[in-house]
């Protein structure tokens, strides 16, 4: 690995860590309703929304009402996204005259975007109108992220609550997350991205003449059903445009990851240079990382937040380094062909298949780790063409349950489930009633935490199995052998953990994958949100018990290590057999 690779990773981590406290403290102020500096420019919009919607902001909700509000709002959002896709042909802001999206694809995309997964079975530039991108997808980029943040805040209130039913008001949490946090950050990021070359316009696609016209032979079928070779001259190139930057900003900040264009952040109009790349990859982890500090602030002990943040970093950093290292090593098969893969001052080198020159292997692999640690799922390189171990890293990061930073809100509430499991196991070992932040962890809490920890792996493994034994599953595979299995495992891991990235050789725009993927994304999102809120409700009702000599400290290095062990153990035990059949076998094939 080159010195530059180490420097790039170091700079990325340093800037990320430096931003955790300021942003985390700001978000804590927003959720506690204290002055945060945006009260003038944004406050009037907030108050107007409450007035028009008939919301009393200080009216608390119990967990059931909160859950109903979450589900209702997401259901409505899904219907709107579905409707916009089906009707876009006769709606305005469609300069390319794109027709209706097919029902199964529209269903998949609607669930994909409301569940913060942003799995995409389509190419934006040939399928989705500007109106659908803005009013459907961009909106869900915001509110699905805000939903995750709201659920997290409700859980924190549950932990803090003293014998109460109240876990806050969903509408307030949703509106404040959107208007005070996501919108201002997106606005700044969008402008910065356009300055680097990301497109942002409502104008139709542009046609330009090629400098060197291309002639090639196309085989077509004539009227008699015979295939004939036809020479075609290509003299023009079409530049797809659209309101991309405004969507890309929130797609990164909200851990959504759905690309404006088909190839996502590898597209030069989405991610034109290393500076835009740095801003985008930073935006992926920014809010999930900062929420750790927000959590610490809100429970009244910032060390609690730092301990969780440290546990996330302990898992993330080695995996990121491993991914960068594996991609730097390149493909041993190319050596025999007289191909130079060694990094130098004149080229990135390494495994450049499916990677962009401007990013090289380092920025591509850092991104691959960040986008799968967070449940973002945008890509700036094609993960399907990664080396076996380089591809194992993103796959396993998703399979850990999207809790290493994870989605905005959802990552931390997922991690808190692991915290509860860790506290419980530690309690069993020393024979004491486990407690966390003054709340006793009892049977009901453990049931809810276990559901949250086990639903995603169950979905992933079951869907992998179903896709592997059916023709409708295996016919989508592009690559032969173990790698083909990896494609399916990656797909299931991605939709089963609401990530959205892909081993994109798998052709998933089929009725089977669209419908099955939609169901899995739906279950993995809402079958976690409801138990999380139930847990929040149960914790809120409990008494706060004072710290005693028997309390397991949850803010120190020992506990962070214990949490890491819990996450890794569950992730390893569940997925090692499957990973052995995919990337590990492929690694042995490639190198031995």
């Amino acid at each position, binding site marked *: 690995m080159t010195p530059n690779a180490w420097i*790039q990773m170091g700079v990325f981590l340093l800037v990320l860590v430096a931003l955790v406290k300021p942003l985390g403290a700001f978000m804590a102020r927003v959720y506690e309703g204290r002055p945060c500096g945006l009260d003038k420019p944004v406050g009037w919009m907030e108050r107007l929304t409450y007035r028009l*919607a008939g919301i009393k902001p200080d009216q608390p909700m119990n967990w059931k*009402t909160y859950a*109903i*509000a979450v589900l*209702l709002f997401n259901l*409505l959002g899904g219907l709107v996204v579905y409707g916009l896709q089906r009707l876009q042909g006769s709606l305005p802001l469609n300069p*390319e005259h794109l027709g209706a999206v097919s029902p199964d694809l529209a269903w998949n995309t609607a669930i994909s975007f409301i569940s913060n997964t942003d799995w995409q079975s389509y190419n934006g530039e*040939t399928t989705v109108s500007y109106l659908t991108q*803005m*009013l459907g997808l*961009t*909106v869900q980029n915001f*509110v699905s992220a805000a939903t995750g943040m709201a659920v997290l805040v409700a859980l924190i209130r549950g932990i803090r609550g003293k014998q109460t039913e109240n876990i806050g008001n969903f509408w307030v949490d949703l509106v404040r997350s959107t208007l005070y946090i996501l*919108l201002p950050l997106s606005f700044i990021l969008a402008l910065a991205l356009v*300055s680097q*070359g*990301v497109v942002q*316009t*409502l*104008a139709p696609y542009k*046609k330009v*003449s*090629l*400098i*060197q016209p*291309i002639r090639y032979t196309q085989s077509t079928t004539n009227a008699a059903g015979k295939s004939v070779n036809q020479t075609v001259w290509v003299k*023009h190139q*079409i*530049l797809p445009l659209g*309101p991309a930057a*405004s969507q890309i900003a929130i797609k990164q900040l909200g851990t959504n990851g759905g690309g404006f*264009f088909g*190839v996502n952040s590898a597209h*030069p*109009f989405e991610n034109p*240079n*290393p*500076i835009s*790349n740095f801003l985008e990859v930073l935006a992926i982890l920014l809010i999930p990382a900062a929420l750790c500090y927000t959590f610490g602030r809100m429970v009244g002990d910032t060390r609690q937040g730092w301990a969780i943040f440290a546990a996330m970093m302990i898992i993330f950093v080695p995996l990121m380094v491993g991914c960068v290292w594996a991609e730097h090593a390149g493909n041993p098969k190319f050596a025999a*062909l007289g*191909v*130079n893969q060694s990094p130098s001052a*004149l*080229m*990135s080198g390494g*495994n450049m298949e499916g990677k*962009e*020159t*401007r*990013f*090289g292997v*380092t920025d591509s692999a850092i991104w691959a780790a960040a986008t799968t640690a967070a449940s973002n799922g945008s890509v700036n390189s*094609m993960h399907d*063409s990664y080396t076996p171990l380089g591809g194992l890293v993103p796959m396993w990061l998703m399979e850990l349950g999207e809790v290493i930073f994870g989605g905005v809100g959802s990552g931390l509430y997922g991690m808190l489930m692991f915290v509860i499991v860790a506290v419980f196991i530690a309690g069993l070992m020393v024979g004491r009633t486990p407690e966390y932040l003054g709340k006793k962890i009892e049977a009901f809490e453990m049931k809810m935490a276990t559901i949250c920890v086990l639903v995603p792996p169950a979905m992933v493994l079951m869907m992998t199995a179903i896709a592997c034994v059916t023709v409708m599953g295996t016919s989508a595979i*592009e690559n032969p052998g173990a*790698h083909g299995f990896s494609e399916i495992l990656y797909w299931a891991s991605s939709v089963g953990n609401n990530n959205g990235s892909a*081993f*994109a050789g798998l052709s998933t725009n089929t009725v089977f994958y669209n419908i099955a993927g939609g169901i899995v994304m739906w279950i993995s999102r809402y079958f976690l949100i409801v138990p999380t809120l139930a847990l929040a409700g149960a914790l809120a009702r409990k008494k706060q018990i004072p710290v005693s000599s028997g309390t397991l400290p949850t803010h120190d290095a020992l506990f962070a290590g214990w949490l890491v062990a819990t996450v890794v153990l569950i992730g390893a035990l569940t997925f090692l057999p499957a990973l052995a059949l995919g990337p590990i076998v492929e690694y042995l094939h*490639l190198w031995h």
Partner: protein
Amino acid sequence: MWSQCRPAIVVLILLSAVTGLAYPLLVTGIVAVVFSWQANGSVLKNGAGKPVGSRLIGQYFSEPKYFWPRPSATSPVPYTSYNGPLEDCGSGSNLGPTNPALFAAVQRRVARLRAADPAEKGPVPVDMVTSSASGLDPDISPAGAYYQVARVAKARGLPVAEVKTLVKHFIRGRDFGILGAPRVNVLELNLALNRLSLDNQSKD
């Protein structure tokens, strides 16, 4: 449950209006003034003022007198219109590292580069024989550009040193010396090359 219906509907409408209309339109309006060139696709124009492509979107070149870009997995050329609307999107090959098809493709590309310049015996820079992620990669590595200098110079009847100087001029290092990878924009380089040939012709 019904008591939550009104907030659900009204909040969705209002947040849609703010995040789905006001926000993208405001950004579009601001950048139309401040960053108009970037916002509209970074289009380059030739001497006559005619748009010849985007600085950010790779074009395909196959003649020996031009620098060739990364091979595109999208066959034959992405983002071209044959008869009307946009048909082929850019994409990566998504070939796995052990796929024989990947090995065959790299072998074919190496052979093509070697056939175009049999005198060049050095190892081929990896980016010249592997396809990019987007299929639209506007850049090649400086090593990939230097590898092609002799062929391009010969095809154009230009001195090798002159073409090499031109390549050197178009090398972009890592941003801030740290971020990304060194690269050469193929379209800009080829446009400059055309200008250089024109200048040399008018001198003759």
